[in-house]
């Protein structure tokens, strides 16, 4: 189980399996803790734990750039803003009490999780390793992409999907201006 690195022996895949399961369990357990724990500050810390585990997953998938960006933006910036927002609330230590919607929400999210698992298992993924084995893709080309993903991502972002990229920045700019306007009014 778990993703295996291309061009590695069995010992490496054993190691990858261990790391995969550690990261997977840590991501799911801390995600569960985020919604279950009463202390909002600790919940935020567990959210950071989840995000770090996901960053580890990205490294396992050899997407180092995504992992670095995940840590830099989500752990370093967004989660800090979340903590700031949490500290503005009145009762941080008991801020997440149980409520009457608990059971319906639990059932709904279980169903949604089951659906997600079903979809990801039943999808016919276009995997690289069978494609290499069948000779549709050359292993060297794949290794070339994986050894340095940054130019590939850069070409996609700034050449092929430049319009989407720019629209996203306009959206962010609008959000900044909106925030400024709100402050001015208050």
């Amino acid at each position, binding site marked *: 189980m778990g993703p295996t690195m291309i061009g590695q022996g069995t010992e490496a895949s054993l190691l990858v399996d261990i790391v995969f399961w550690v990261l997977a369990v840590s991501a799911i357990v801390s995600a569960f803790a985020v919604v279950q724990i009463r*202390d909002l500050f600790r919940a935020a810390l567990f959210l950071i734990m989840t995000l770090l585990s996901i960053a580890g997953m990205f490294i396992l998938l050899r997407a180092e750039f995504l992992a670095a960006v995940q*840590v*830099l933006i989500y752990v370093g910036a967004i989660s800090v803003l979340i903590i700031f927002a949490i500290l503005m609330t009145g009762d941080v230590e008991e801020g997440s009490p149980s409520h009457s919607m608990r059971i319906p929400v639990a059932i709904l999210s279980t169903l949604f999780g089951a659906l997600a698992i079903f979809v990801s298992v039943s999808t016919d993924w276009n995997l690289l390793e069978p494609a290499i084995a069948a000779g549709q893709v050359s292993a060297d080309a794949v290794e070339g992409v994986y050894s340095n993903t940054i130019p590939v991502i850069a070409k996609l972002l700034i050449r092929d999907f430049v319009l989407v990229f720019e629209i996203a920045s306009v959206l962010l700019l609008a959000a900044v201006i909106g925030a400024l306007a709100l402050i001015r009014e208050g």
Partner: protein
Amino acid sequence: MHEIQTAGILDFGSLERFFQRVLPDSLDRFAFFIAAFTLAFIVINVMVQTTAVYTWFERRVLGRFQGRLGPNRWGPFGMLQPIADLIKLMTKEDMVPKIADRWSFNLAPIILVFPTLLVVAVIPFGPDSFLGRLNIGILFVLGVTSVNTIAIFMAGWGSANKYAMLGAMRGVAMLVSYEVPMALGVVGVLILSGSLAMSDIVIQQNVPFLIVQPLGFLIFIAAASAEMSRTPFDQIEAESELGSGYNTEYSSMKFGMLFLGEFMAPLVTGMIVTTLFLSGTRGFDPIPGQVWFVGKTFAVVFALLWVRATWPRLRVDQIMAFAWKGLFGMALVNIFLIAVEVAVFQDDAGKISTNSLWIMSAINWAIAIGVIVAVANILGQPNLERPTPVPSPLANMYAEAD
């Protein structure tokens, strides 16, 4: 001049091969783990002990700057002072406030130290770093060091102390703000070198980037000393205002860990600046590259120390204004400038010759001086009118009574 040193260093790959040779075949799969632990052991010990020596160095030099002696009692020139400090810290009582959030409080010192140690793994001390060539190099450094922010938040919140919380809040606001100019200051280096890997950045520096882009260097070093929260930017633990800031409630070895993180940061920053702007291990020949690296690192550390000893602490609003109005704009100017110059000077193969680098340096120094003067005139208040002092009506109270 500027020969690339090829002296090998102890890297992960060669360690693993060594253990595979030494161990019997049936244990080969453990070579990976043994190599990893050996490397971690070496890195952690070297860094911690260098930091111990550095605390002595910093206190002696600060003493010299401030016209006093500094620690000079134990050992030659007081060099054994770090050991005395360590014994003192270890024998102190380990106190945790009763209403503290114990998990946050106890974990914070560890989380503060480990990113700083992780950064060491990707710094190229030789032709490559301990971990070999990591192609996200500098992004790894920026990402990992941003975890520090969380540790300071945990320490401040976990202490359940107003001063600790205030220090942490100020500090976190400052750290988050200065991450922006820090990352943007690096972008100039990335455009010039065309790679994020630290070892490639060193190879590209036929002319050290300090000379090619002085503006980028100044932005980076200002932002980095804010990230370390050292004196012009030490809002986190402004002693005169906040007790001791986020570490007010810490004692014993937990304080020792926070102290370790605080004093390791300038060393690691010195290494990063050396790699990015001072051409890392490169130098001229009889002296090996590692010696160049250490020498340059200590030069940067000494310069940081000089700044710390010379400037007074800024106010919170001044610090934030400097990040967003000053450094941010300057970083954008720097990126635009370097991008245009690279587009103009690069040849068909995308390379930039050493001569073009020198021409770029001349242009960039002129523009850097212009930009700095302009920003200083906009942000500073040269024509600030000081109110004329009015004598207090009570000043001559007793004189009149006579």
